[in-house]
């Protein structure tokens, strides 16, 4: 019991990301409304971003902006003092990708609405089947 509890607490962020990811995935698969699906897609993507950011965290470290002063020569920098910047960089990219996907998805959804006058998937499929 102790062990499991320890496991749960030690990786709390990871559990949350899994939860969010599953929420998003469920939304994408099970929701009927196209915009809802898009919301699910975004939640899904942000969950992964949360995962990456969690990788970068270091206990006892600060944000990855190196302390510096202009007059003093560079002193040695200890990597353990700063949070891992690489996941942040990757996730900047991922955020941008997700907003780009969102833009395109919404544009396509608007196009769908213009053609079918509804955003409910079952209604659209019905319209297609019986023209």
């Amino acid at each position, binding site marked *: 019991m102790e062990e499991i509890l320890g496991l749960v607490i030690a990786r709390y*962020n990871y559990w949350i990301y899994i939860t969010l990811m599953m929420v998003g995935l469920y939304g994408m698969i099970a929701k009927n409304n196209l*915009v809802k699906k898009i919301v699910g897609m975004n939640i899904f993507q942000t969950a992964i971003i949360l995962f990456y950011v969690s990788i970068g965290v270091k206990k006892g470290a600060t944000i990855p902006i190196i302390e510096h002063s202009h007059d003093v020569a560079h002193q040695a920098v200890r990597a353990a003092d700063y949070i891992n910047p690489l996941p942040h960089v990757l996730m900047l990219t991922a955020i941008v990708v997700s*907003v780009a996907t969102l833009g395109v998805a919404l544009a396509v959804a608007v196009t769908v609405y213009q053609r079918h006058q509804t*955003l409910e998937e079952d209604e659209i499929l019905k319209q297609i089947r019986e023209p």
Partner: protein
Amino acid sequence: MIWQLDLLILTLVVLCGIGALMIRDLLGAAILFGAYSFMMCLLWAIMGAVDVAFTEASVGAGVSTVFFIAAVYHTTRRTKD
């Protein structure tokens, strides 16, 4: 890192996410999604990812929500689920 705060925000994130999917109004979903993004941004700021948080604040909570609203405005708020 204040763990109570951390826990609170994590819980809020999940709630906002589920709420955005559950609510039967697309405009509401868009707003809740904005809230979700903002919570996420706070979370990342707490975790020390300032740049990511900054981007999420401007992109996720800002522009994405506006995009959603723009799209919903020109389609419909109605949703069955």
